[in-house]
């Protein structure tokens, strides 16, 4: 009996170490963000102003919604490269649909993008093709579709200002833009879905060890199909919100967005190999990326080439810091 007591006692020491490391894993990016923000607000007068922070929140919100979907996908051990194209497609569809009313403007992109995600998920789950390549193809397909309905990008559909749809992008509540509220709500829902529902447990299980999850009776295929559908839905929704905000279905959006989203999720502490991740971390990751961008603009006189070097350098420093904070017990 006392043997197990000793074990438990020893266990708690291990737990404390593990908890600390988990804490760092979860909050490493947050620490980096706070440090960065602190330094920036001392260095630039115009950083910690209401306007600037609002801009930051607004521009972050669309990427954040995309990153939210990406988090689910990455926790299952997958990846979704199609989100940038789907984002652009969602915007164009929303703008086109807005002439038929707010409902169409919202539901059309969700339906089409959800379908794309569903096909992604089916291909990945049922035929066991690599997510990387399936979603790469979907990225081409969604971009092709978007060009197809805009006369190769020549037509930009404008959002009908009469519909309530525009308020989703431009409305304000308590001085904060609607997309920011929507993003916040989505992240709350996302966090609950991932941490507190059976679906969330299955997402972790599939990412942690797919074969074991199948043997334990988790619905692996269904979970995968759901996460890819969810990711595309959220990307489409982000596109639609963005279209409402910009009041038009801009056709040149979303290039490289998938990489930004992946970077944000990973910086936020989610393991690319799956099985471990946090919704809140992804939000912090997005804010970190956008803050870096904002700081470069605060400097205000960098050549475009230097801007890239600086943001690449920042990225390296951030991921080293994050990895270092999150360093886990080595497998070896």
């Amino acid at each position, binding site marked *: 009996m006392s043997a197990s007591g000793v074990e438990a006692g020893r266990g708690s020491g291990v737990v404390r170490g*593990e908890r600390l490391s988990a804490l760092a894993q979860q909050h490493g990016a947050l620490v980096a963000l706070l440090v960065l923000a602190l330094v920036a607000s001392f260095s630039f007068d115009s950083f910690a102003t209401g306007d600037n922070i609002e801009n930051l929140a607004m521009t972050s919100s669309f990427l954040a919604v995309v990153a939210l979907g990406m988090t689910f996908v990455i926790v299952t051990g997958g990846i979704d490269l199609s989100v940038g194209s789907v984002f652009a497609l969602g915007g164009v569809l929303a703008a086109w649909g807005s002439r038929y009313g707010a409902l169409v403007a919202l539901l059309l992109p969700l339906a089409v993008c959800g379908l794309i995600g569903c096909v992604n998920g089916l291909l990945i789950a049922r035929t066991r093709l690599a997510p990387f390549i399936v979603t790469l193809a979907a990225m081409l397909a969604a971009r092709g579709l978007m060009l197809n309905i805009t006369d190769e990008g020549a037509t930009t559909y404008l959002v009908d200002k009469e519909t309530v749809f525009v308020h989703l992008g431009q409305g304000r509540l308590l001085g904060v833009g609607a997309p920011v509220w929507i993003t916040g709500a989505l992240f709350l829902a996302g966090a609950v879905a991932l941490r507190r529902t059976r679906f969330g447990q299955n997402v972790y299980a599939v990412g942690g060890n797919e074969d074991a999850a199948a043997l334990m009776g988790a619905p692996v295929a269904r979970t995968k199909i759901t996460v890819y559908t969810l990711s595309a839905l959220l990307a489409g929704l982000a596109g639609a919100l963005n279209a409402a905000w910009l009041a038009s279905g801009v056709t040149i959006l979303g290039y490289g967005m998938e990489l930004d989203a992946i970077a944000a999720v990973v910086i936020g502490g989610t393991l690319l190999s799956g099985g471990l991740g946090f919704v809140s971390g992804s939000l912090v990751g997005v804010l970190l990326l956008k803050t870096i961008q904002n700081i470069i603009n605060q400097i205000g006189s960098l050549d475009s080439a230097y801007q890239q070097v600086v943001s690449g350098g920042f990225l390296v420093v951030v991921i080293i810091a994050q990895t270092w904070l999150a360093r886990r017990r080595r497998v070896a």
Partner: protein
Amino acid sequence: MTASPVSAEVLAVRGLTKRFPGVTALDDVDFSVRAGEVHALVGENGAGKSTLIKVLTGVHRADEGGVFHRGEPVAFGTPLEAQHAGISTIYQEVNLIPLMSVARNLFLGREPRTRLGLIDFRRMHTEAHQVLTAYGVDVDVRRPLRQLGVGAQQMVALARAVAVDASVVVMDEPTSSLEPREVHTLFGVIRRLRDQGIAVVYVSHRMEELYAVCDSVTVLRDGHHVHTGPLAGTDRLTLVSYMLGRDLGEVRSEGTTKFSGTHDTGGEPVLRAENLTRPHQLRAVSLEIHPGEVLGLGGLLGSGRSETAKAVAGALALADGRVTVAGVPVRTGSTVAAIRAGISLLPEDRKSEGIVPGLSVRENIALAALPQLSRYGLVAESRMDAVVDTFMKRLRIKASSPHQKVGELSGGNQQKVLLARWLAMNPKVLLLDEPTRGIDIGAKAEVQQLIDELAEDGLGVLLISSDIEELIEGSDRVVVLRDGAAIAELRADDVTADRLMRAIAQAAEEEASTEEEAATHG
């Protein structure tokens, strides 16, 4: 629980054939299990036991023949369907999610929920704790599963399988990583299941377990059905002869373990490890192994035996500690340095730390010895073939060819491939962590004999085994670990099962320390 008449067949297969590329794993096999019966399934490594179970539970699909559940033909597409039909399984390799918490693993798919439909974590944790305590696992259920030792993980898998409302519980080598104490708990669980009218299929290589808990037995050999009958009427040797396909007399002439007596252990120690220390895991462990000596490492699950072996082999970063081989210091924390110095480690978890599943048998055997088997960075194929050939013959590795993927071999043969990998290195010190776990009696005897031979050739061997008999008969000296520290050492005539049990048991601590000198070398 669906209590059906005792004689009713709950689950059966008829004329089952299953082929894999290059092998016929099962050939026209019949098998059935009745409610309230514990049915043993035995056979050598690669006989097809696990494959049969996987067909029964929807992991594999049969090529020919059918599966019948309560007399109805069924075809489970996924393990989930089998579970819904009331068939619950513990697979041979622990199949849980390492990064998820213990409680989440236990409850995956049937989490208690609040009225809002959200998971009720508080209830889940309390219940998980209660369930696991009943199985003798006392841990913080919020910890990630991977922090548990393999044995504790096995108990979690067991608890999970039994907790489901099942009419059949299938256990594929559940005891291979359990301590005697836990095996005892397990048997209690099995008897309770039987009394509830649940059918149990039980796979094990340990004879005494079969006789302790099983009612009837089916023997497979090379994918064929050989024998089915009540266990009471079949004695051990007959069973073994069925499994091996040899006649009784031949088997009778061999003993239980293949170890010979003690070895000559003179001379300077070939390995000296001092003061190995690692936060939370190892506390100043020191060891010496002499050439030609087999040093046993005893202890309970989680006592730090695997960590000690890994530390010596450079696979763990240490806070403190020195390792010397034949007097020459070895850099710690580097597997490369350890291997170069002549230390080889056969890891405990062969699935994830041992084999490279996608590479062939040949490549796996030659993996560590590659630098020796190549010139100017180019692989000397013919030398490699020679080495591979030698060891495949010597260890009797059963594979369709040296080019078969190791991932497709049966567990026992995978273990042999790993042994071959290390023997090909000509090591000075061999660290064997559970070398005979999950190995059939034939292979087990071969491995034990091999350990003997190696020691006689002057190798230093460190043997970790949860099989007390094996540890006692195989070792010249046993160091007992508890809680990450060496607490006792048994020498010569003290190396007996009784002494070992007492040293391991916590109550014997004082006794042990007065009778045996403390094992920590100054």
